């Protein structure tokens, strides 16, 4: 049972997605079904993480008698599709399953009045399948396939409210970006295949020689994944997609974005880690991209009137922190003393920020969805005085806003402090930008809070009440997670984040197929 976990992680949500359309007339039933399936994947991912953290990298081979058989008899190269799960992949899998579960609960009432719910939930589970496949696979072509699954399911969900023209506009933007990005990934995969005659990540990483053609492949992969994770020059699709998608899908869509970020880390750390000289340069590019992303994202957020759009620009700016943290680590990867001094902590900050950001940004986007559910508008100028009507939403919003601005004792503080401390050691200027971004973030959330929740009660919202229970439950779970992660960051860091970081740093372990070959 345990050794089949990596396959089950993909099989269970895929099964759920194919069963979901059968509940055509039973909207309650399909909601329960989605919650059941995503809930069981949460349990599976926790089991998987426990297994990986205690016993090291897990290798699962499709099409072999025993899951542990990597090489077919008589060949010296791996020819089968492999799932290779290290702590980083398990960490991302936990984020993905948890957020899909929360999204499914939240959707129970948030989209109950829409038509075609069975397709909605099928796509939600398909999106989860895509993310899980991306983060668990050890095969380059498989990565492309799951990237496309996540991209298609994600953009179909962005355009779910097809009675609004804006939703289709955002959907086609997202789809074109994701199609072009994944085609370029496929091109890079073909280049690497032509060079090394194999698709296995670890095998290519061991043999990579970094000639001109490899550099082109690295450039293509880096650019495409940066495009898919919304780093700055290619960030334009993020606000549209996050604004138009139903708020229940925001958490899985966020994780889908960060699965691309994971692929970016995987490419720069695992695939090209044997290249000693040029990796510092890639790290600097990543750090500078991160600083630009966070700064431009936050300045564009300040001028927004649409509450969800404002938060989407913040999502861009927070991606910058992760790029900065991990970029600092990548810069000093081949310098053991500096790596031990601050590189490892910088990467821990970046990786910890991924899960923190997923939690509080989902919370914030869900409160924005709750505001939309109650008031029917997303324009901040038309809202006001909602604090008394919606107390739980207000408190959740305050928790999320405090966390994203990096106030102690919320979870944003824990990871941002790690990033500040360590990026200062590489270059103080990076830290200055990061801190200014934090202050600007706080400023824009004060604006939202004042215009939406404070002020005199408005006439037209007289008989409005708090949002229904499932939405409240989803928001409260996330708010509690925000506070717990902020109060006890050490537990999360030791149990999940540092193993994930070490998995990225000790790339040689990944290259040896988990000690099998």
């Amino acid at each position, binding site marked *: 049972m345990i050794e089949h976990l990596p396959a089950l992680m993909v099989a269970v949500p895929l099964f759920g997605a194919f069963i979901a359309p059968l509940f055509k007339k039973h909207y309650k039933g399909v909601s329960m079904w989605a919650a059941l399936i995503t809930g069981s994947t949460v349990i599976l991912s926790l089991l998987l993480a426990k297994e990986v953290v205690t016993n090291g990298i897990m290798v699962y081979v499709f099409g072999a008698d025993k899951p542990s058989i990597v090489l077919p008899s008589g060949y010296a190269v791996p020819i089968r599709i492999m799932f290779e799960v290290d702590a980083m992949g398990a960490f991302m899998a936990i984020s993905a399953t948890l957020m899909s579960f929360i999204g499914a609960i939240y959707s129970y009432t948030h989209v109950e009045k829409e038509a075609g719910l069975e397709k909605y939930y099928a796509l939600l589970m398909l999106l989860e399948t895509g993310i899980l496949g991306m983060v668990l696979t050890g095969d380059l072509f498989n990565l492309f396939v799951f990237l496309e699954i996540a991209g*298609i399911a994600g953009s179909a969900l962005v*355009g779910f409210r097809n009675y609004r023209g804006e939703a289709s506009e955002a959907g086609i933007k997202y*789809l*074109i970006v994701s199609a072009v990005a994944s085609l370029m990934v496929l091109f890079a995969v073909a280049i690497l295949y032509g060079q090394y005659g194999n698709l296995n990540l670890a095998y290519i990483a061991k043999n990579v020689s970094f000639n001109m053609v490899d550099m082109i492949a690295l450039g293509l992969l880096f650019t495409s994944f940066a495009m898919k994770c919304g780093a700055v020059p290619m960030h334009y699709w993020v606000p*549209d997609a996050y604004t138009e998608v139903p708020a229940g899908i925001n958490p899985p869509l966020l994780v889908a974005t960060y699965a691309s970020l994971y692929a970016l880390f995987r490419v720069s750390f695992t695939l090209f880690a044997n290249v000693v000289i040029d990796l510092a340069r890639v790290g600097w590019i990543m750090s500078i991209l991160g600083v630009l992303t966070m700064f431009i994202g936050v300045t564009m957020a300040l001028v927004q009137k649409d509450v969800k759009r404002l938060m989407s620009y913040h999502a861009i700016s927070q991606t910058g922190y992760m790029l900065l943290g991990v970029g600092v680590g990548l810069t000093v990867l081949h310098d053991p003393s500096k790596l031990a001094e601050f590189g490892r902590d910088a990467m821990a900050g970046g990786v910890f920020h991924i899960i923190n950001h997923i939690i509080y940004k989902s919370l914030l986007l869900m409160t924005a969805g709750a505001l939309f559910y109650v008031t029917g508008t997303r324009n901040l100028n038309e809202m006001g005085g909602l604090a008394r009507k919606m107390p739980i939403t207000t408190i959740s919003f305050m928790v999320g806003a405090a966390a994203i601005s990096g106030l102690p004792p919320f979870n944003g503080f824990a990871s941002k402090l790690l990033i500040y401390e360590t990026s200062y050691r590489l270059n103080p200027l990076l830290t200055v930008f990061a801190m200014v971004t934090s202050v600007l973030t706080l400023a824009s959330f004060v604006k939202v809070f004042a215009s939406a929740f404070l002020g005199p009660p408005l006439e037209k919202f007289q008989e409005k009440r708090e949002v229904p229970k499932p939405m409240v439950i989803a928001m409260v779970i996330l708010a509690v997670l925000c506070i717990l992660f902020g109060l006890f960051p050490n537990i999360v860091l030791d149990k999940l984040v540092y193993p994930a970081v070490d998995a990225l740093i000790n790339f040689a372990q990944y290259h040896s197929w988990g000690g099998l070959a």
Partner: protein
Amino acid sequence: MNGNIFVNFPFIVVAILLALGFYTIGFKRNLIKVVIGVEILEGAVNMFIVAVGYIKGGYVPIYTQAPQEAVGRMVLPTPQALTLTSIVIGVAVTALMLAFAVNIYKHYGTLDITRVRRLRG
């Protein structure tokens, strides 16, 4: 000399197609033409994969009952399987993009991407 050009011919075509695809996506204003641009890109990438896997004078990759002289001279089956998968995925992407285009035409009354701009700021 002649043979050299012939060996590189598929790759030259791939480069031309890639340039054409990016030009179409970047500079054409009609949404359908943008979709066609993505299709051209996909064709280029698929052709690249097939060209990478081709061996001059190679045999069809059937491992059982292969003739004796085919041993060691078979074309690798993997690139062809990859191309098939990528074609299938490409069809799904195109269908979805065209569905979006139809919906956009319904709501905006135009396919000109400079006028499909309700989301801004």
